């Protein structure tokens, strides 16, 4: 239908006259097609990446950049310009002290948070990584109420995801440490909070996986078995279906907090730096030592890991649960109490790598799903929405690059990687092409599907 209209635009004596009218109709029709929720998500996206709330220049996207899986790591930080608002503490004299620690930010991707109050700023703060925001729809709810941020208590007001942005603006967007609304920043309006929440919930997975998956690779397949084995890996207890909800046999208890002993890890990178890095007591003030369970499907592409970015690789993150810090923690002891042999988690090197391989593959599968979805969406955009189509293809390219990175990082599925590279080639051409975009996009989708078939049995 749309193509026929486009044909009329190109040919015929009346085309010249009709072109603007038809183009206008296309825009109007397109606007009518967008549902209220889509409009809200689009508004939220606009606010998230562009609105500074009259503060220090940061936006939500400063710490949650779209091109880096909505999180920060030192490699990405190193690509930013010196005047990027992330580094505002380096060039705004009012924020030079007690706002960020530039060295820990640049070296380890750590952000300063005053979770235990805004007095004694020299000593009272914690340094935390930036959690990604993918799959939030599956990872915030708990019977005790919403859990946001690394310790599950990241939002002021009613503690909901919707209220999170208000706290973020006060903590991270302020021009001075006085933090006076209307002077150092403005608070988000009710409408803006609605839009940011809608956008946040639209990111990534909208539902949990249903494990086990019919995986093809021998090592990832074994990794999945260990992951699901409640007497060996025991991962599925707190990360049911590799998500962020816990299930101890009597049904899901939603997203939960645990003290897993991460704070007791020896030789934490930030500590080794010699910079002041106070202990983080987690949930509440004073804290109870617990932290929130993140989803694992997106883990392989969103390191460094844990609330303090203590571990760089997914293999290292899995290995943490085999270590002393975890097994002597309250959570480790509870697992041991539930074990017939009194063992917490005990894994060998090959098993650790197998679980990581499994996590890498499910991450790649999720990226492929998103890539295909984005490419399909781009195909539905007519010539009047070429820029939108190009943006969708660009986002798909980012996802594909992540697929390649997580698979190659584990030496997994080289055939799938080859198809993903082909998909990239077609998608790049599609983004540039004026006349063959649809055909090239279709070819990119085919290559994505071929890659998927390498990873998992087709249903």
């Amino acid at each position: 239908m749309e193509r026929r209209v486009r044909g009329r635009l190109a040919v015929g004596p009346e085309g010249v006259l009709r072109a603007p009218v038809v183009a206008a109709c296309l825009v109007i029709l397109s606007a009518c097609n967008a549902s209220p929720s889509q409009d809200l998500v689009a508004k939220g996206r606009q606010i998230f990446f562009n609105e500074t709330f009259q503060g220090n220049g940061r936006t939500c996207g400063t710490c949650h950049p779209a091109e880096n899986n909505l999180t920060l790591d030192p490699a990405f930080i190193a690509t930013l310009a010196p005047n990027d608002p992330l580094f505002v503490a380096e060039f705004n004299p009012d924020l030079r002290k007690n706002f960020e620690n530039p060295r820990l930010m640049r070296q380890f991707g750590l952000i300063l948070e005053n979770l235990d109050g805004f007095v004694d700023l020299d000593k009272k703060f914690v340094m935390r990584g930036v959690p990604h925001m993918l799959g939030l729809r599956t990872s915030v709810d708990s019977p005790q109420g919403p859990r946001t941020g690394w310790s599950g208590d990241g939002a002021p007001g009613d503690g909901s995801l919707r209220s999170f942005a208000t706290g973020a603006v006060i903590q991270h967007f302020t021009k001075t440490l006085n933090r006076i609304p209307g002077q150092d920043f403005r608070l988000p309006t009710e409408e803006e909070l609605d839009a940011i929440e809608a956008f946040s919930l639209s990111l990534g997975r909208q539902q949990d996986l249903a494990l086990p998956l019919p995986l093809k690779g021998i090592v990832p397949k074994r990794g999945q078995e260990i992951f699901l084995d409640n007497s060996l890996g025991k991962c599925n207890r707190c990360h049911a279906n590799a998500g962020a909800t816990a299930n101890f046999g009597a049904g899901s208890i939603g997203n939960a907090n645990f003290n897993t002993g991460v704070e007791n890890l020896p030789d934490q990178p930030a500590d080794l730096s010699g910079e002041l890095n106070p202990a983080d007591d987690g949930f509440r003030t004073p804290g109870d030592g617990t932290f929130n369970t993140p989803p694992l499907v997106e883990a392989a592409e969103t390191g460094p890991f844990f609330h303090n970015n203590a571990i760089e690789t997914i293999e290292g993150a899995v290995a943490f649960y085999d270590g002393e810090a975890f097994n002597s923690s309250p959570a480790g002891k509870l697992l041991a109490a539930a074990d017939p042999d009194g063992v917490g988690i005990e894994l060998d090197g090959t098993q650790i790598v197998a679980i990581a391989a499994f996590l890498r593959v499910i991450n790649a599968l999720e990226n492929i799903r998103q890539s295909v979805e984005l490419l399909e969406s781009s195909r539905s955009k007519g010539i009047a929405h070429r820029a939108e189509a190009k943006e969708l293809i660009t986002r798909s390219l980012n996802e594909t690059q992540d697929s390649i990175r997580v698979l190659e990082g584990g030496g997994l599925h080289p055939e799938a990687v080859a198809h993903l590279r082909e998909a990239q080639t077609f998608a790049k051409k599609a983004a540039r092409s004026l006349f063959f975009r649809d055909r090239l996009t279709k070819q990119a989708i085919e290559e994505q599907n071929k890659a998927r078939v390498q990873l998992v049995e087709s249903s």
Partner: protein
Amino acid sequence: MRKLLAGIAVMGLWLACLAQAHAQQMTEMYIPIGQSPGVSGKSSLMGAIESVNPQKHTLAVSGPSGIQEILLTDRTRIWLDRTQARLPNLTGTLANLHKGLKVEVKFRDADQKRVAEWIKVQVAESGAPARKP
């Protein structure tokens, strides 16, 4: 098997005992009275202080539905709202609560509305408690 079930029961109990997830209260201190997202106009009480009883740790607030007595615990946070004076907000104490001052109260239990989780009180420019003229 018994040990497994016992362990699961312990874990279940432990999780069930976790109190309701509270919001990160620390940025809350900078949110002016009446603007707390999801709380103001919904579950909080806004009004003027009628009386303070430091011995009993109670506060009487005159709100839209009459005078309500509120209990303060050692976990109740008190913040001095100086936003109107364009000054930074401060942490306060029971001594900052005086008759006539405008307050907003968030309750620990939104249904019973008895124990205060936090109290914001509007104070004068100096940061000293403003008394009703």
